């Protein structure tokens, strides 16, 4: 029997739902397509969170897979009142933290905290447009600011949700966000002020 909020088309047998909680319930009831819908809804956002945190496309893909796998296995522990987006972002963020920790443990090299200071001419040309410049500026932020600004980008002004994902007090989130924006503003202003030729110089 279908739960309230879940419409099961008798003719086609397809699931028509709008809210995440229903999709979670349907997945737990054995409807695999419901989890497919959840993946479809959040894979882009989760991948972007991992990509911004790890700054490596391959690792971001692996971390996204890991996050969804953990979510699938732990779906029974998902609280009905909670937001699925916060939950999956939290799992993804912790998967990224594990990877960053492993990187630090097994790599002799220090983690790069800043973007390439000597970008080639091709990279400079690519960063001309605002979106690329903003992405580059976000990449250049320290990890804690990068993650906060990415979650702010993904979740909007929901400080409480961001705090839950990162397991930080709301005040800290707001401070990180303020400082991240301050750094972004400075970097973008510096980019605008610098002559075009100067940017590519070593």
């Amino acid at each position, binding site marked *: 029997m279908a739960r309230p909020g879940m419409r099961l088309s008798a003719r086609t047998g397809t699931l028509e739902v709008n809210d995440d909680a229903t999709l979670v319930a349907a*997945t737990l009831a054995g409807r*695999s*397509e419901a*989890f*497919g819908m959840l*993946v*479809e809804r959040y*894979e*882009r*956002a989760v*991948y*972007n969170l991992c*990509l911004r945190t790890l700054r490596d*496309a391959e690792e971001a*893909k*692996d971390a*996204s*897979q*890991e996050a*969804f*796998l953990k979510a*699938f296995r732990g779906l029974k522990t998902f609280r009905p009142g909670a937001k699925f987006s916060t939950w999956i972002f939290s799992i993804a963020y912790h998967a990224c933290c594990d990877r960053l920790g*492993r990187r630090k443990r*097994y790599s002799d090299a220090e983690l790069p905290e800043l973007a390439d200071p000597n970008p080639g001419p091709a990279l400079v040309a690519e960063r001309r447009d*605002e*979106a690329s410049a*903003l*992405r580059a500026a976000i990449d250049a932020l320290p990890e804690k600011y990068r993650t906060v*600004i990415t979650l*702010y*980008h*993904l979740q*909007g002004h929901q400080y409480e949700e961001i705090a839950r994902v990162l397991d930080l007090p709301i005040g800290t989130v707001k401070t990180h966000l303020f400082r991240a*924006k301050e750094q*972004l*503003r400075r970097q*973008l*202003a510096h980019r*605008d002020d610098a002559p075009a030729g100067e940017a590519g110089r070593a």
Partner: protein
Amino acid sequence: MNHEYDEIDRALFALPLEDPPKDLHQSILALTVYAPSEAENRAGLWEAIAAGFSLALAAVLAWTVFRNPAFGAQIVAAFTLFGRGFADQATLAALTAGCSAVAWVSLMTFRPARVEVRSGRS
């Protein structure tokens, strides 16, 4: 351009999300809802049937051997042959070499491999 905070907000919210790899969706589904758990269960059932069959066959063979009146003599002969092998220097040398190799390998330490969740990647 003057990058005030509200403009940073505007730029952030206008920033398009980057596309995930094309095979990400399928690989997640392959790891989760399409993971071969049912097939594994079926394989487990067949394994149990095969083990039961092997056990029954072993029991029948053992019963046949025990019923043989010459069974005792055959066992004694087999153990004698096995014991005689230890008197052979070449056998002892091979056993020593094998044990040393096992001890050496067991003392080796390996760097832990990265835990990766990959699926369908070339």
